[in-house]
């Protein structure tokens, strides 16, 4: 690991503030990254990491605060400006032009030209050199970018950044869609880049990765930098405490639950590609969790169960429905689902809270008075922070958006709730409220005549599953293992099972 003179940091950000209307996204953030080091930026979703990086890249302008690169003031007006000063972003979602060749992608926006004509010879040379930097010398330059794997595309993005003269590379969740082998490759490359004196800002939810690859870290919470230090000297637990800022045990309330009759039964369910074999029982008054790594087939199983994707084989009995399952019949029978992808599937974000909330169960004639009455009660009960029920869902924060999605299920008065990553991308406060709500729904209220509900949760965040569930099953490569009582499992045993009996390193401490 390169240790360099630290008198002038490669990048220095001081007192960065950014507001969006009344919301304070960043309230004075400091960050220093030195040449030749990898600096981890840690924080929960919504802590302000992406906003900070957008300020760094020039996509946003800070309201106040200053930035320096190598000691000179840096004030990017737009991302192009940022790129010219040597700041390059490697995003989670790949940003290559899928139909263009590898070499065209590398020089895109910086094509060497004589007048209007591309100098293909120079392009080949530049692209070849850039690929050599990332260990892809053998890749034919004409390959179409879209034909490459995610991991290779990511390397080409890095190559592009190096070719355009970047000095600061920002990696935003680079490993989320990579296999262990690809991750090792990436880390080898990052170490090489460190030795070549690049400054690296590394954002990840995986604390083990951060310990493996970064030298120092900064923790963000609610838009403020709450701690920093040398990675090797910090314990994971201390970092988590800094991130969360509260005692985690209070997050998960647990009322006495009374297990009732069976409401859902699946036997050897298999979908088109995934899942492969899922058998489970779900009863009233219990919360069942499905753990597993990304891509294990958990979302696909819920989609099969909700008739959004076809079932190839196996039996499903749910909520006493006879015959073919359709989403409409499931809603009518008292089954509701929350999608893992709020923006693309869960909510019609351009429509109002009222429209979204009532979409699954509407009378034939709809008046705004009816919508208002219905929504008011849920807005107060959850509570959803909004100006009016007719506000667009777009205007709400992630947590409040998710509560709208949950309110849709409550309004439809469902008995069986299928929740796919119910707390993904929302703040801790909203999470706590959702955990409490799940507990109340599972416990029911016999005195008020509210029956307990059955809840099936898919989540990648293990502490959450362990906190709210009664039984947990682990899915691995499309197969669901036996459901076990929550007292009989821990994070370690679950990760062991999720990754195929210890073939992979366990990965806990992952956020939403």
């Amino acid at each position, binding site marked *: 690991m390169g240790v360099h003179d630290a008198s002038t940091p490669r990048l220095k950000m001081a007192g960065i503030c950014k507001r969006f209307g009344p919301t304070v996204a960043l309230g004075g953030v400091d960050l220093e990254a030195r040449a030749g080091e990898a600096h981890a930026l840690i924080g929960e979703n919504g802590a302000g990491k992406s906003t900070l990086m957008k300020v760094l890249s020039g996509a946003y302008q800070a309201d106040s605060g200053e930035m320096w690169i190598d000691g000179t003031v840096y004030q990017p007006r737009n991302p192009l400006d940022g790129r010219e000063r040597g700041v390059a972003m490697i995003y989670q979602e790949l940003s290559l032009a899928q139909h263009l060749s590898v070499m065209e992608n590398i020089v895109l926006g910086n094509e060497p030209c004589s007048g209007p004509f591309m100098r293909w010879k120079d392009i080949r040379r530049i692209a070849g050199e850039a690929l050599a930097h990332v260990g892809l010398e053998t890749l034919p330059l004409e390959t179409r970018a879209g034909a490459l794997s995610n991991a290779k595309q990511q390397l080409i993005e890095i190559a592009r950044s190096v070719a355009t003269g970047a000095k600061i590379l920002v990696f935003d969740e680079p490993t989320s869609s990579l296999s262990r082998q690809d991750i090792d490759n990436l880390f080898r490359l990052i170490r090489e880049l460190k030795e070549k004196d690049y400054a690296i800002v590394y954002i990840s939810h995986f604390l083990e990765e951060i310990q493996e690859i970064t030298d120092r870290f900064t923790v963000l919470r609610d838009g403020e930098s709450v701690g920093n230090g040398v990675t090797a000297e910090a314990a994971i637990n201390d970092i988590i405490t800094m991130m969360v800022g509260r005692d985690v045990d209070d997050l998960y309330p647990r009322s006495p639950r009374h297990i009732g009759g069976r409401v859902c039964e699946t036997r050897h369910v298999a979908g088109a590609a995934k899942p492969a074999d899922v058998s489970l029982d779900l009863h009233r008054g219990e919360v069942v969790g499905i753990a597993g790594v990304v891509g294990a087939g958990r979302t696909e199983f819920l989609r099969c169960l*909700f008739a*959004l994707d076809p079932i190839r084989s196996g039996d499903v009995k749910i909520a006493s429905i006879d015959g073919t399952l*359709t*989403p*409409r*019949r*499931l*809603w*009518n029978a008292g089954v509701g*689902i929350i*999608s893992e992808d709020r923006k*693309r*599937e*869960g*909510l*019609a*974000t*351009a*429509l109002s809270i009222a*429209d*979204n909330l009532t*979409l*699954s169960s*509407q*009378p*034939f*004639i*709809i*008046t705004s008075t009816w919508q208002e009455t219905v929504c008011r009660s849920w807005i107060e009960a959850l509570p959803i922070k909004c100006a009016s029920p007719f506000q*667009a869902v*777009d*205007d709400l924060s992630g947590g409040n958006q998710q509560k709208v999605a949950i309110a*849709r299920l409550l309004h439809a008065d469902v008995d069986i709730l299928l929740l796919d990553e119910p707390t993904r991308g929302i703040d801790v406060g909203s999470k706590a409220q959702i955990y409490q709500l799940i507990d109340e729904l599972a416990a029911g209220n016999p005195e008020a005549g509210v029956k307990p509900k059955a809840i099936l949760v898919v989540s990648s965040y293990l502490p959450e599953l362990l906190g709210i569930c009664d039984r947990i099953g682990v899915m691995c490569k499309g197969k669901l293992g036996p459901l076990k009582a929550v007292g009989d499992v821990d994070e370690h045993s679950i990760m062991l099972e999720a990754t195929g009996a210890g073939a992979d390193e366990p990965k806990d401490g992952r956020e939403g």
Partner: protein
Amino acid sequence: MKEKIVKTISKAGPFIALLFVFGLFASLGGSDFRQWGTMNDILMLSVIVGIAALGATLVIISGGIDLSVGCTIAAVTVVIARMFNMRLGDSYLIEQFPILWPLCAMAGGVAFGAAVGVVIGSSVVGHIGRAAAVILGLLVMVWLRSGADWPLFVCIPLGILAGGALWFLNTISIKKTPLPPFIVTLGLWASLRGTAKWLAGGTSVYVDVSEVNGKAIWLNTIMRDIKVGDMILPMPGVWMWGLLAVAMGLMLKYTRFGRHIYAVGSNENTARLCGINVEKTKILTYLVAIACAGLAGVLRFAWLGMGDPTTDIGTELLVIASVVIGGASLNGGVGGIGGTLVGTLIIMIVYKGCTVLGLQNFVQEIVTGAIIVAAVTLDQIRHKKAD
């Protein structure tokens, strides 16, 4: 409070534009423009585009588009003219009740539009076989009528039977492959125009709309001013346009179907997740929308007094422009009937205003184009501010 005012103004954007355009021509055109006759002309000019645009509003809100409106209108004029010349009036019933004839013509036109709508809707959701079934049904009708010369009341049920049989057979056997509505209606834009020419025998179909078997009928009066003493009231077509607008507006705002159109246009995946039958909603949307185009075709026939396969070339663009000026988004999920009405009126005020000012046709076209781009630009700025 301030936010509320800004919101109201931004919502009323198209209306403000309408007032502005109207005020501009009212002050430039002087008393030539500011008279009832001119207003009435503007309404008259607006009716056909306006009615088709009501339907197109639904399609665009649902996230689709219809490029074949003009061709549907042309085909409907020919279909009605051919029905006319089949001496349908010979039948005993119509002899006794001549009012049935214009009603039949209207129903025929609207039904043809609805059939085209089902073809487009089915293709868009991927039931190619169903689209083919409807086309087959229509072809059987045409062939039995003009080839075998069977009476119409036999041809229509047989056509429906043939199409219906294929409809139910192929739901089992043909795989779903959704097509983009732009492509489907671009194809129909060409084929439907060709079909109109084929049905018309390559030329205009002349008929005498004023009477059937010596008895006066009122189909031609739909597009004639109503004279009450010295007063001139707008033609019945204008009233139909108004009533239809109210009905569609209520449907979009207050019925489940209307809300589902918005939901499907805004986010199809969400709609599916919430148990909405997306395919059915889309097909119904196209059916209702292009039935409107069928009605516009009936009015065009009443206006021309003949079946003209080359009429309404370019109308589809005026229709889309009306909807877009009215604030609808081509991405779906946004739009409304009020806006579309205003959009149609703006286009026609510019048209009539330029005529009154003695400006040439090209001025009107340039101005209309500028208004379309300006309207959408303002809309985008508005949305950006909202973020």
